[in-house]
């Protein structure tokens, strides 16, 4: 059994209430931090833990915190990114729904470390019932003296507010999120200035993911160095993985970073193997934005090493033969799944979610969607495959925010690893259509958008 630090108590009846959570040892980390540590000492422990941000980019959290500007007389903000909209990702939801108090405890300790007296949780609008759970949890924490004025008599004041978004993937990007929190359209900002200097309302702001901020609780309980012993040297701690697709046991799992991918996919403890006795075809291991891996590169790297569930092993081989752990949205495809259709589907998603500020992203995603739609529907030409390759290359690296890259990478990886399947769609349009829309009885064809 792999060690669990975040959801180890999720099965306990009533754990979502303050009373039970407290009885199970909850809020001891908050007490330890506020009563026995200075804010800088807390940050120091987070640095020692080696924790990498769990929202997708994997930036070391302690380092991010140390960049926070601290001018006199200017408020600082902690903003928690609970937008969770990367296709394949549904892990933050599990924390907030099942164990909301450990999440709130993480926010309290983190706000203390950063000197923030206001913390906003930006939660995707569709998680309406979870917003209610969080408001109840915050009220309970406040009633018990862990929020509000002069917390634990230590002179630290903190209010946490839940802010519901309204449906826009781009608002998960941290600067778009801040724009949205200010009541505007979610258009990403140019960086620099970074949020750590000029964030919410022009004030220094730290934006972190739900899981990252929750992990502060075990980091303080164990101490940063002890936490860093869990996992691998470069991928410390545990990570939540949300597994979906053609597997026997889809769901949210907490793993110790560094277990083997094969174990994760095939063992009964986790995904339980491929459904209906089918063969594994491919996997998108870290949310829709990361490169797809064909089956022969999933359990082993190109060098023949065992592939592990860790930042470094998942990206072994770079984009040529590797991928990324990303948000932990782990999507598994069996032999019946069509890569062309899936690539079209994801590209349609990015075109829909592009905010439209930069022309390479706005035009490029639209163009890729059209080309993929014709390939998917048996109307493609062989040259379309190279055309797609060219379009994605023109997007990558030429945009304000990483959504452009996120749209380009899946297309590049699909062509890199499954070019033959794209070609087959061109040379065998009838069979391809039958396969996707006949045999699988998915007769409903989405119209190409204008």
């Amino acid at each position, binding site marked *: 059994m792999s060690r669990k630090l975040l959801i180890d108590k999720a099965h306990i009846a009533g754990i979502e209430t303050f009373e039970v959570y407290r009885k199970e040892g909850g809020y001891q980390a908050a007490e330890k931090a506020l009563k026995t540590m200075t804010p800088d000492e807390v940050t120091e422990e987070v640095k020692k833990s080696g924790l990498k941000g769990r929202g997708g980019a994997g930036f070391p959290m302690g380092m991010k915190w140390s960049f926070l500007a601290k001018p006199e007389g200017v408020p600082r903000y902690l903003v928690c990114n609970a937008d*969770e*909209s*990367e*296709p*394949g*990702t*549904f892990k933050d*939801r599990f924390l907030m729904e099942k164990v909301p108090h450990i999440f709130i405890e993480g926010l309290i300790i983190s706000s203390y470390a950063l000197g923030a007296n206001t913390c906003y949780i930006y939660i*995707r*609008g*569709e*998680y*309406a*019932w979870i917003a209610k759970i969080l408001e109840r949890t915050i009220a309970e924490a406040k009633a018990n003296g862990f929020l509000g004025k002069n917390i634990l008599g230590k002179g630290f004041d903190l*209010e946490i*507010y839940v*802010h*519901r*978004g*309204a*449906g*826009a*993937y781009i608002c998960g990007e941290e600067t778009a999120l801040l724009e*949205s*929190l*200010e*009541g*505007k*359209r*979610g258009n990403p900002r140019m960086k620099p200035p970074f949020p750590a200097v000029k964030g919410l*309302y022009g004030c220094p702001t730290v934006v972190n993911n739900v899981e990252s901020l929750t992990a502060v609780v075990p980091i303080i309980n164990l101490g940063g160095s002890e936490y860093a012993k869990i996992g691998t040297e470069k991928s410390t701690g545990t990570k939540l993985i*949300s*597994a*979906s*697709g*053609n597997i026997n046991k*889809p*769901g*949210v799992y907490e793993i110790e970073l560094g277990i083997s991918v094969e174990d994760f996919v095939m063992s009964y403890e986790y995904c339980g193997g491929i459904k209906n006795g089918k063969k594994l075809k491919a996997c*998108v291991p870290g949310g*829709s934005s990361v490169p797809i891996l064909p089956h022969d590169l999933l359990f082993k790297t190109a060098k023949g090493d065992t592939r592990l569930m860790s930042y470094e092993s998942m990206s072994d081989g770079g984009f040529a033969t590797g991928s990324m752990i990303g948000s932990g*949205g782990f*999507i598994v*495809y069996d032999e019946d*799944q069509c890569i062309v*259709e*899936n690539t079209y*589907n*994801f590209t349609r*998603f990015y075109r*829909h*979610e592009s905010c439209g500020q930069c022309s390479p992203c706005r035009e490029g995603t639209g163009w890729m969607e059209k080309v993929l739609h014709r390939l998917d529907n048996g109307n493609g030409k062989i040259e379309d495959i190279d055309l797609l390759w060219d379009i994605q290359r023109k997007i990558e690296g030429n945009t304000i925010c990483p959504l452009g890259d996120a749209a380009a990478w899946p297309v590049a990886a699909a062509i890199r690893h499954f070019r033959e399947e794209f070609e087959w769609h061109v040379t065998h349009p009838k069979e391809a259509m039958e396969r996707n829309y006949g045999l*699988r*009885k*998915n*007769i*409903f064809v*989405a119209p190409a958008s204008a």
Partner: protein
Amino acid sequence: MKFTEKDLQKANEIIARYPADRSKSALLPILHIAQDANGGWLTVEAMDAVAELLKITKIEVYEVASFYSMYNLKPVGKYVFEFCQTGPCNIQGVKDVIKYTEKKLGVKEGEITADGLFSWKRVECLGACGYAPMMQLGEHFKEHLTAEKIDAIIDEYRKKAVALN
């Protein structure tokens, strides 16, 4: 549209969460309140009422309302089936579920059934990929959808609507 006392109180509570000169921050949450109070969609009148409440220009409200997919700028059914059409739901056959629903309700995407009760649309990943295929229905997620489940849900909500009347 006028805000009820209760909605106004809720709105003011929300405005108080942001710095005094930053009440525009309350725009998204208050648009949710306005939409709920207005049968699930935002009329120009409703958006204007929000602008007045927050002391911002009308165009600032329209601009935001048209950016976010949860705000409806056209009438919708009393109950809206919002099917996730993204990758993981797609490979679990959401297209079949959509086709079935379309036939059963007899309306196309965005249209409302004659009794005003139902409409449906396709949306992007809702964070329930492991429980696919799924849809959002009001404040709830309906997961592991099948034709039988759709039948049961339609029956349940028809009864619900009768009970409310």
